[in-house]
């Protein structure tokens, strides 16, 4: 029957049958093990339905499903978990009931007792990720989750050598993403070592990224890890940042991700660029690392590209220039001025305004850099921008021309 129930119209017919669910639940809790499994398969199919009315019929079984989580049968537990996970998006009433029935402790226990069973871990993490995406998660669910053992359990799965594929790590990483992105205050997770663990794993994955392995699992894992790191960087104290993210391999991986996925998965490249900005915003050591690891020239080349990537990369370079004069000099040596001569012509206003800011950072206090900019023909661009309809752009161009380039002939 479970095969028949894959068809949505069959599902509708089924649930209209009197006592059909009652029957299933009866079988689910009956004494015949094989029947239990088959009944569960039916329920799982129903839970998977695109019609909420169908999937909600599974709800009466939820208390049993939760109870079975501490059982020993792998396949059975997995299916219970997926069924529960499928129910989560179905509305507040479902969430309330599941919470009342103790889904969070149940998940925690399940993950802990079954932590060597990766299929179950994957399923439990999946269910948790579904729970964390519900409408009221931030208020009702996340505080409880953070108070439980779940965060440390999730982190323990993020190891660099998954023998059985990345799937469990993928699910755990997505859970952590929902945790870190739902609220701004992630200090608990930070204290629990989340930033360290995620960036460490990212650093390790760098090898696979640069090897150019086109691997579905890899991208699906990189994505939530990047997001976790990006958001965790926001609340990490500056003095601890460098030690937490682990320095060189992390930076190299970030840049490798941007370059490798630029054309094939630009959203991933964009997210990595965002993380790069967050890492360089307040931390001098990371800015220095970017220069000393010779990652800057390749980044400068990326300023030409659109789809949001160039803005974040330019912000990153601005962060570096902002640090000190020596950094500005090095950036110019790597060709930033020439790149600005192109970005100043772009249609994207944000890009142009930011380019002017960067130019200011570079030439302010350095007549040498100012002269170089003139030599590269940049004055004409500024003169043009003086007549742009955007006040922000006009003001900046005008200020630069009068204060920093006034002594140069056209």
């Amino acid at each position: 029957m479970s095969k028949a129930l894959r068809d949505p119209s069959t599902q509708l017919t089924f649930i209209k049958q009197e006592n059909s669910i009652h029957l299933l639940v009866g079988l689910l809790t009956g004494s015949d093990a094989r029947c239990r499994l088959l009944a569960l398969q039916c329920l799982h199919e129903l839970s998977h339905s695109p019609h909420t009315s169908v999937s909600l019929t599974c709800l009466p079984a939820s208390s049993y499903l939760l109870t079975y989580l501490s059982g020993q049968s792998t396949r059975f537990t997995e299916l219970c978990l997926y069924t529960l996970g499928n129910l989560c998006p179905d509305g507040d009433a479902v969430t309330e009931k599941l919470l009342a029935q103790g889904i969070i402790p149940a998940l925690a226990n399940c993950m802990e007792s079954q932590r060597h069973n990766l299929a179950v871990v994957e399923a439990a993490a999946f269910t948790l990720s579904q729970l964390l995406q519900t409408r009221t998660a931030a208020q009702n669910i996340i505080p409880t989750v953070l108070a439980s053992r779940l965060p440390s359990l999730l982190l323990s799965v993020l190891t660099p050598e998954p023998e059985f594929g990345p799937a469990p790590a993928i699910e755990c990483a997505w859970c952590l993403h929902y945790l870190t992105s739902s609220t701004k205050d992630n200090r608990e997770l930070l204290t629990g070592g989340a930033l360290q663990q995620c960036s460490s794993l990212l650093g390790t994955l760098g090898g696979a990224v640069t090897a150019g392995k086109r691997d579905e699992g890899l991208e699906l894992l990189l994505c939530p890890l990047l997001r976790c790191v990006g958001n965790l960087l926001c609340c990490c104290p500056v003095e601890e940042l460098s030690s937490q993210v682990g320095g060189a391999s992390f930076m190299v991986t970030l840049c490798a991700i941007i370059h490798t996925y630029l054309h094939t998965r630009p959203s991933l490249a964009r997210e990595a660029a965002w993380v790069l900005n967050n890492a360089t915003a307040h931390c001098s050591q990371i800015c220095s690392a970017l220069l000393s690891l010779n990652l800057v020239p390749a980044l400068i080349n990326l300023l030409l590209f659109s789809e949001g990537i160039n803005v974040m990369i330019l912000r990153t370079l601005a962060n570096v220039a902002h640090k000190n004069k020596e950094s500005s000099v090095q950036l110019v040596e790597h060709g930033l001025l020439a790149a600005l001569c192109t970005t100043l012509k772009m249609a994207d206003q944000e890009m142009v305004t930011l380019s002017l800011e960067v130019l200011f950072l570079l030439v302010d206090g350095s007549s040498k850099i100012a002269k170089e900019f003139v030599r590269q023909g940049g004055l004409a661009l500024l003169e043009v921008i003086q007549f742009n309809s955007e006040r922000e752009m006009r003001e900046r161009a005008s200020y630069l021309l009068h204060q920093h380039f006034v002594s140069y002939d056209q």
Partner: protein
Amino acid sequence: MLEPEDMKSVGFGACSVSEECQTEATEQKNPFNFRTEVFHMHKDHHIFEDGDIQRHMYLQDLYTYSAEDATTLSVSELACHISGCSGTFSTLEDYEHHYNTLHRHVCCSCRRSLPSARLLDIHIQEWHDPLFTILAQRQDMYQCLVEGCGLKFSTSKHRKEHLIRIHKYPPDFRFDRGKKEKGAQELKRQQPKDDMAMDVVQDVCDSEGTCDLMCNVSCSDQLEPGESMETQVLKDKGDGLPSSASTEDPSTDAQHRTALKPQYSYRVPSTVCFGHGSVRGFRGRRGRRK
């Protein structure tokens, strides 16, 4: 709106600066305000949209992973920043060609674009130099436009006859119009698609409203009532620029541009349904177990 101080600081390319255009050492407040910033992105932020779709499809077992699935990431579009010019370009070459064709050798006073430095000089001298008019009463001041010819004439009419007769110029040569002649004078013959620029430059001159302070000749002189050609061009392009000398509001242009803020989901499959009641509530059903 450009302040008069801003107008005075003009310096296009090889523009010869007339008296009115002298740069004043105005004390400007430093407008730069870059601060290094971290950005916390909420799970529903649009930057995450594409990645969420990928995750969704993975869960639905719809995820068809294709190594050859390469989206061509485009180079960022270039745009001409001259106020009112709406030229956009996909290559540096196009941009440079546009700028060099239409925005170099621009007269500060009336914003007309001339094709060469020499013609610009002549233009400024004949149109905007009060001394010229005085001198022209007593001596031949109108130079032949052909470089190397060296001849001068007492009136522009004489010069025109000379150009037609000796140098075989067409009688309607565009860069020898007198001040009160009508028409979109400075349009080049071969227009790239952005030939709006010239009319627009004229328009900007009007719309900025400060032109009167700058020009010896009032701008309205240059737009005869019967300027059907110019307005016609504007209407044809139909991108909403005012066809009269009314104030073009630069802020609406800016608003329009911010309304077109780039959306990040560049590849949303049409089959993806974002569930009920949430910003991006995936009904993330687990697929069939294999």
